[in-house]
């Protein structure tokens, strides 16, 4: 039988009982749709993680304080990570050539009669460099794909220097919206503002920024900010010394593991951490590199993939069994048709191909509908997962290939049963 004749015949058979065909497809539809939606969730989560940790360069070690559970509460595991821990690190750790530090606080900002409730950032002089390398924000209306430098981030004045950080200089750089909210159209540079109860001179204004990721533009406002030297922030905003976040820059990124060991030794010495009876150290800090994050992410992705594979296999097997069941019923119902076809010259292979193609058409029909349902369900999945769901393009051809394979696997047995029928018995079948 020629291919067009085969398709025409199988299509006629598969579409003869439309309700039954659609009900048979349900298993495949649900299976494929859930795979598409789940892959989209995985893809969205991965994209979010990648976006969040893009700022961590290959030569950086993120140092944060460790937390522990005590009586059901989260508490600090030991000493805080102090400003001094970070400040002295380049002098004591061979492989660390500089550090970036930050500390966050919030309070009132006042100029004349205008007051703003907002968050403040105490940072080191390399903060602008971190903003550029993170790739998370860009100047508004920036040409897509074009790179920008730290000088593109300041619209008026300048950012503070490393010596101003060391000297606890009472200076600050404000965000674009902070500037317009507080000063209207006036130039803020050189003006003195009140940060809580302390005076601070505005030395620069940031350019208007927006999130590179369009989906985050309405969630995060990068323009309502105030940056001041971390030392100044600690002096002015805290009664007790706060814990800071430290990023250590390693001079040789091929020696990251070695650098981590050196940082650990340095912090253990400063925090006076001794090994316990088993020789284990109970560190009060965590070290994270890009490799650690990617490794953990890969592990999570693998676990997720295994779960998805199990779900997909179960739902597709159920769908496949449904197809096999309906095809067996169809072969029985059409026994006489098989006899007639054999009498007029159909070979066993022609009969096999006819029924196999019918099974594949039903399965692929289910696959196509499953892809549509899966894509339509992505917004729902996203709403249940903090907006994190992105269609994985490869999942569409994958789903259709899987549908064909299911059709072949579960259609071959009924098709072979049809082809093995005795033509005389088949022609007499009532």
């Amino acid at each position, binding site marked *: 039988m020629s291919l067009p*004749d085969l398709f025409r015949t199988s299509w006629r058979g598969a579409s003869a009982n439309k309700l039954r065909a659609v009900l048979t497809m349900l298993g495949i539809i649900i299976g494929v749709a859930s795979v598409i939606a789940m892959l989209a969730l995985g893809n969205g989560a991965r994209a979010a993680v990648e976006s969040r940790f893009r700022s961590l360069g290959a030569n950086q070690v993120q140092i944060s304080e460790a937390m522990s559970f005590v009586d059901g509460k989260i508490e600090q595991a030991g000493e805080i990570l102090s400003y001094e821990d970070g400040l002295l690190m380049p002098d004591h750790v061979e492989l660390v050539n500089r550090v970036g530090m930050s500390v966050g606080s919030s309070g009132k900002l006042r100029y004349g009669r205008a007051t703003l409730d907002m968050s403040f950032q105490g940072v080191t002089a390399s903060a602008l460099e971190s903003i550029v390398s993170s790739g998370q924000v860009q100047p508004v209306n920036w040409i897509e794909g074009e790179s920008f430098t730290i000088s593109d981030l300041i619209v008026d004045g300048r950012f503070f220097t490393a010596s101003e950080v060391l000297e606890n200089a009472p200076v600050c750089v404000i965000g674009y919206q902070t500037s317009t909210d507080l000063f209207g159209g006036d130039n803020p540079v050189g003006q003195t503002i009140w940060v809580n109860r302390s005076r601070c001179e505005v030395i620069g204004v940031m350019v208007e920024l927006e999130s590179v990721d369009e989906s985050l533009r309405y969630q995060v406002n990068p323009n309502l900010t105030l940056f001041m030297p971390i030392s100044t922030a600690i002096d002015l905003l805290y009664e007790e010394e706060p814990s800071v976040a430290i990023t250590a820059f390693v001079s040789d990124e091929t020696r990251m593991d070695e650098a981590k060991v050196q940082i650990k030794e340095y912090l253990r010495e400063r925090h006076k951490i001794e090994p316990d009876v088993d020789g284990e150290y109970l560190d009060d800090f965590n070290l994270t590199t890009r490799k650690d994050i990617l490794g953990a992410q890969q592990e999570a992705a693998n676990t997720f993939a295994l779960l998805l594979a199990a779900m997909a296999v179960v739902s597709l097997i159920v769908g496949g069994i449904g197809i096999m069941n309906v095809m067996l019923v169809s072969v029985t119902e059409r026994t006489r048709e098989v006899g007639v076809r054999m*009498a007029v*010259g159909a070979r066993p292979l*022609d009969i096999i191909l006819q029924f196999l193609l019918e099974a594949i058409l039903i399965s692929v029909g289910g696959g196509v509908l499953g892809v549509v349902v899966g894509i339509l369900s992505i917004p729902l999945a996203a709403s249940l997962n903090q907006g994190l769901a992105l269609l994985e393009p490869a999942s569409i051809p994958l789903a259709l290939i899987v549908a064909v394979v299911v059709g072949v696997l579960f259609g071959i047995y009924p098709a072979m049963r049809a082809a093995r029928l005795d033509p*005389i018995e088949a022609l007499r079948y009532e």
Partner: protein
Amino acid sequence: MSESAKTIIRTVGLTRDYQMGNVILKALRGVELTVREGDFIALMGASGSGKSTLLSLLGLLDRATSGEYFLEDVEVSSLTRNELAAIRGRRIGFVFQNFNLLPRFSAWENVALPLTYRKGEFGVEEQRKRALESLTRVGLDRRAGHQPMELSGGERQRVAIARALVTQPAVILADEPTGNLDSITGREIMSLLDGLHAEGKTIVIVTHDASIAQHASRICTMRDGILTEGGMTHVSA
């Protein structure tokens, strides 16, 4: 029919046994039959006499237990299922008592069915053209687009005859073609078969109705698996 006419069918000592538990049922016992081009043969006999079994063997739907069967001088007993299917599709036309039309297919599609198994020899348009020619021959070209459910019994059997004719077979095998029809419609169908015979078609018809058998040029009678013709009984040694 002259003795010099081409031999279409020749069987030599054809037997067909069925195993029924411990019992062997002999459905055919050494049947010797020769059908020449242009013959119109009626196979008569009581129910269970073996006439339908013989027709199935002649139509290559079944294999003989022993003996030889030559179809157009080709010994077909040892051919594979695929080879038998190919010969069935090209050289044999079937007409069944219950028509055996495919319900979801139109009259012309039913008629064209044997052409679809000719490995792409005929495109859809060619299939339709040939089917319409065949339907015209049986006087049903105006009903080509109708499905079997929309046709009367007589019309359905005409469609089945058109299907048997569409491949221009060497022989038409008809199993009780009027069995499901009233007497008037039955006569119309026999008149159609007479016309085909007059055109030179070779026809073998199974019937238990003597008035139907009268249309044939030769009458063979089956009894307990033994074929008798013209008062002679052909049984191999």
